[in-house]
């Protein structure tokens, strides 16, 4: 899927989010294999590489994502593979390089997003991440600005809420951290009306914090 001049890359999106105080897994743009390897070493393994292109919306569909790279050799090999498979899938896509980021330990996957309603303006969405979002549509919405109480209500409203509480011995997700994150995203989109749509997908939620692993911002 190729489109949109207005799509910020993951690296650009995360920079903006970080400045707004929204926790993200930091990603750095590397324009060459060499740079990717040295950045990986700085960050520490395991590493994730993702294609960085304003034209590629769904990165993993075109082979543009490599997870769990354990050393420099693997990073180098993955760099070549990512670039060539995206070039094959989208020959016209402008490729900036790859984003390099540490592989976040697994947590409860959730999604937070924003889109604009023609009648009510910016709305936030919350849901469990992965296929549950797409298949079950188990998500909740609130109009921006979202207060702490709204945030808590929208978290509790989803059917999958028990998963966040730590179902069958799984580690729970920090509800206060998710609540804060939602309020911060609300403030962020309120201050930046030029943002048309936003996805933090997935966010990994842990017992003590929540961090956006991938992010996508689309401008008006």
């Amino acid at each position, binding site marked *: 899927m190729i*489109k*949109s001049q207005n*799509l910020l890359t993951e690296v650009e999106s995360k920079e903006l989010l970080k400045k707004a105080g929204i926790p993200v897994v930091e990603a750095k743009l590397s324009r060459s294999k060499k740079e990717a390897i040295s950045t990986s070493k700085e960050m520490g393994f395991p590493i994730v590489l993702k294609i960085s292109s304003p034209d590629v*919306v769904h990165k993993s569909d075109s082979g543009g994502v490599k997870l769990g790279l354990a050393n420099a050799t693997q990073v180098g090999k993955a760099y070549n593979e990512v670039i060539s498979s995206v070039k094959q899938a989208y020959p016209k896509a402008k490729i900036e390089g790859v984003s390099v980021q540490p592989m976040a330990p697994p947590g409860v996957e959730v*999604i937070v*997003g*924003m*889109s604009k*309603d*023609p*009648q*009510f*303006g910016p*709305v936030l*969405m919350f*849901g469990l991440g992965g296929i549950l*979002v*797409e298949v079950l*549509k188990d*998500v*909740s*919405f*609130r*109009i921006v600005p979202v207060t702490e109480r*709204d945030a808590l*209500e*929208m978290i509790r409203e989803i059917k999958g809420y028990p998963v966040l509480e730590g179902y069958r011995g799984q580690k729970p997700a920090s509800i206060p951290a998710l609540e804060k994150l939602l309020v911060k995203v609300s403030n962020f989109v309120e201050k930046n009306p030029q943002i048309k*749509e*936003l*996805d933090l*997908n997935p966010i990994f939620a842990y017992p003590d914090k929540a961090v956006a692993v991938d992010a*996508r911002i*689309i401008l008006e």
Partner: protein
Amino acid sequence: MFEEKLTEFEPIFYPKSVAVVGASATSIKAGTLWVSSLNSAGFPGIIYPVGSSGGHIADLEIFPNLKLVLGEIDYVIVSIPRKSVLKLLDDCAAKNVKAVQFFTAGFSEVDTKQGRKLEEKMLEKARQGHIRIIGPNCIGVYCPEHKIPFLLGILGESGPVGFVSQSGGIATKLVTIGIARHINYSKVVSFGNGIDLDASDFLQYLAADPKTKVIGAYLEGTRNGARLFNTMKEVAKVKPLVVWKGGRTEAGAQAALSHTGSLASSAAIWSAMLKQAGAIEVHNLEELTDTLLIFQQLRHWQGTRAAIIGGLADGGGGNSVAAGDACMENGLKIPPLSLETKQELSELLGEVGSILCNPIDVSQAQFQGLATLFQAIDSVARDTVTDIVLIQEDIDILLPIYSRKGLEEINDFFVEFTGRQNKPIIVVLPPGSAEPERLQIEQKLLAASIPVFYSMERASKAIYKLNQYCRRQEVK
């Protein structure tokens, strides 16, 4: 809150004089009907019919032109072709009219460019002349306290429910259902295209109106979503607000690039908005009327622990089980009765054939007489483990066992019992083959402020919605 609206809207809901433009002595036009229905409803102000025919409607003289009316005019009802509306607004400005309601249709609702343009010009003239517009394409105001009926002379009793509607048909239906089910309105307004005054304005007025205790709304869309959202937030803080959003179609999910964009349907956003504003969402006319009824009758009463009496005679067992399911599925709790109550009931009814836990089957009382039945109900209601008593009264079963006389005694008991203790009883009267008797009983109970529903499902849904509001008020 919004107190300024009370004076501002006084000429709309309590006009001292009304002119009806588009009345005729020779043909039955909508304007003619309006004059007749206001007149026969006993409208306490002055009615000025206006129309080119001359002559009279009843004993009211028809003026050929609004400007020829000598007295002051607060409110004008307009039913003339749309090509004449701008000229009419000039006349209204010259007469210092405060508000104009346009029954006239054929504007932006038919989505023509011409219609939209005309609306813009109307609004401009209204602003210049300091006139407020209701409509166009609407049936306007219903205010039984001031004897303003809906078109065709529909007029019920005055009461605590205020209602705002984009649709005239739904507003009318709600008033007629209200007449049948004792849902009584303070004011109802249908504002159609809402080019000037819209849902937000009327919601603000109803929030301030001391006669209105509960507010309902039927909406299809809004021209100013942010204002509506903020208004609803404020209104729901002071009065229960029940909203039915019509036209829940998928509009927003076109070619969105994000997951969020593709999932954010218009219906989902409206539901979220209503929840966030503290309003209670309903999805159809049944839910709307049931919810307004329970708010009218029980207001701020709270509690979801129900005692269920599934039947008063034969056949109570299955009904009790079904009623229990309906209540549990709709968010109510059905706690077991206390040991003392169970003891009392088993002494009264004997344990054979009775379920004395909850749901409670009191059908054994039919072998011991009505006094035993009433004692059993009294005993159930006195138990403090529950907040409310739901009783299914099936006329088809009771009539052959107790005859009409017994049936009357049973319902006299409900009325008397409600009067002498605080726990609400709610009666479910399922429709069946004895409709005339059932309707009579329904009227009697409703008149005594006992909420009546047609199924356990609908009763429990309404109780749950009442609690949803009260709980939110508490944590505020």
